């Protein structure tokens, strides 16, 4: 079992023929992901990486039966690409693109929620269900299948932590990189809810960052659902920025600091180790309490 994507997921790639789209589509295909085609406006009817290219997402969905899209479209056009995917009847849309203006994403995120489409990202590394389906830019070889449900805001920190878990023998059910932008389609708490219903997932690992209140919300849900979990917060030693105006402070209050996030997790009974090695040890304590 897994969340969001599995071996039956049929994928189209938006921004298929571009440099990043091409490189990562090939990597995903090599991993075993069922990529069934791609979209590049103006190149419909051609073939790329041995797969059909379409001008629009609607046509691609109609011809291939895809249920999921992954987006590598440049930032200025990416919000429109997300909307196109949301309106074309896809179940899941993963947007890798970095640098999309906030104002473009606010209505798109709302549209996805209103239509019940699972939007992940933008500015994220994607999602991987090890051994079944890789939809993202992560190196596939550092993941393995197992009981850890993994959620992270950061891309590269995900690799670091997943690699350590895999080396220690703790595989992952699904790893979700939710993205670091202020507006993202899927939050920590959405993933916590989905993992709680997944039978294969026995423990959650959350890698948070300073800023926003998503970690605090996830901590509250973890407590409510009683899911075993371990959390890490990056940026504990980051100096406070030169804050301009009061608007941000008024919205988030004292939440957003590393200390507030650590406190929220600890109050929910979730250990918050400082290093990756200690995180692996906490996972070991939960998964194999008597084996040592």
């Amino acid at each position, binding site marked *: 079992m897994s969340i969001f994507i599995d071996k039956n997921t049929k994928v189209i790639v938006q921004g298929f023929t571009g440099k990043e789209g091409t490189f990562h589509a090939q990597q995903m295909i090599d991993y075993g992901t069922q990529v069934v085609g791609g979209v590049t406006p103006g190149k419909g009817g051609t073939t790329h990486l041995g797969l059909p290219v379409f001008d629009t997402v609607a046509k691609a969905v109609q011809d291939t039966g895809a249920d999921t899209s992954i987006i590598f479209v440049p930032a200025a056009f990416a919000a429109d690409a997300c909307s196109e995917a949301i309106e074309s009847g896809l179940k899941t849309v993963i947007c890798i693109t970095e640098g999309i203006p906030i104002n473009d994403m606010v209505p798109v995120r709302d549209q996805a929620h209103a239509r019940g489409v699972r939007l992940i990202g933008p500015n994220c590394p994607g999602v991987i269900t090890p051994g079944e389906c890789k939809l993202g830019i992560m190196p596939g070889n550092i993941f393995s299948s197992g009981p850890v449900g993994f959620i992270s805001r*950061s891309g590269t920190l995900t690799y670091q932590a997943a*690699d350590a878990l895999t080396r220690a023998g703790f595989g992952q059910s699904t790893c979700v990189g939710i993205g670091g932008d202020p507006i993202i389609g899927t939050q920590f708490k959405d993933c916590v809810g989905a993992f709680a219903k997944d039978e294969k997932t026995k423990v959650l690992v959350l890698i948070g960052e300073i800023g926003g209140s998503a970690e605090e919300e996830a901590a509250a849900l973890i407590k409510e659902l009683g899911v075993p979990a371990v959390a890490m917060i990056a940026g504990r030693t980051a100096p406070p920025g030169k804050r301009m105006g009061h608007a941000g402070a008024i919205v988030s209050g004292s939440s957003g600091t590393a200390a507030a996030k650590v406190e929220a997790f600890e109050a929910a009974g979730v250990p918050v180790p400082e290093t990756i090695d200690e995180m692996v040890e906490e996972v070991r304590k939960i998964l194999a309490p008597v084996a040592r």
Partner: protein
Amino acid sequence: MVIHEYQGKLLLDEVGVPITRGRVASTPEEAGKIAAEIGKKVAVKAQVLVGGRGKAGGIKLAEGQAETEQKAREIIGMDIKGLKVEKVLVEEAIDIAKELYLGITLDRAKAAHVIMFSTMGGVDIEEVAETHPEAIIKVAVSPQRGLLDHHIREVCHAFPMEKQERKDLAVFVKTLFELYIKKDCTIAEINPLAITTDGRMVAADAKVNFDANALFRHPELEAMATETEEEGDPLELKAKEKGLAYVRLDGEIGVIGNGAGLVMGTLDEVNRVGGKPANFLDVGGGASAQVVTTSLELVLSDPNVKGVLFNIFGGITRGDEVAKGIIEGTKVLNVDRPLVIRLSGTREEEGRAILKEAGIETAATMEEAAKKIVALTR
């Protein structure tokens, strides 16, 4: 991206928000001339990108050319929370009867823009937010339909006010939101939003920040940015020119990595093993060899840096590209300080092979890399 009060007021004026009249000056003489033109009592206000300047003595009242010159002389060059005052705004002084607060920003938890209003505006708004949160109304704007009349009514009828004040406030809410969307702001804030003793509502201060991701469609903001940035950290400016996310810190270990999370994690780790990072530098996703070389050059140009730690875990970034960039850097730059490189992920073997061939060792983990660089820079 952030701009000064005087620049923010120009933007407010553009969309028709009533502002206090005035101009910016870089010298006491200029300030005096502006005061003479205004011909009445003026406020001389330090233009620094930090809050609390009033309490620090950065705002003074003056009357006439000579007094204004004198007050400007006191303020220009002043140090406010580590920032040197280069410019002052000289504007008509107003007699304030009431101070309100009006701000717009993104509420990440609601995933919507939110309008915030309080009749308890002024310097202590943050304290009000903490001790009397009920004194600030927050109205979330519809993500898809934008600002609607009922949102404005909710703001204007939240607290007891005179009829005319409500009418004036409605105009402020509407025009400020227009500016916020039109210019892709992340914050548009008027504090205080002043009601004068003769009953006018006017923006006595303006704080406007912009979404860096949207600057590509606002060439008109570039000029403002350049004007503001002349006062910033030279290395941070250079980094921005090159498109790198760089923040100067006060330690001695240069840190370069890919991804904000990983770089933050690396700073945490360097601190944990007893080192002090000299900077935060995120090369971003998919960095080319050229970008890596540029980053190394930038970090080494800081004389405080005693050694550089690279922490790369590649997804979209390819290990061989990073390795090529480091090799190229060591060829063209005078690398007289130790480097420690941690390279994992996409094309890690290729990358490590390239480094090994050039005699540069790689550390296997972040922990090991942090310990090595700390030992080498002791």
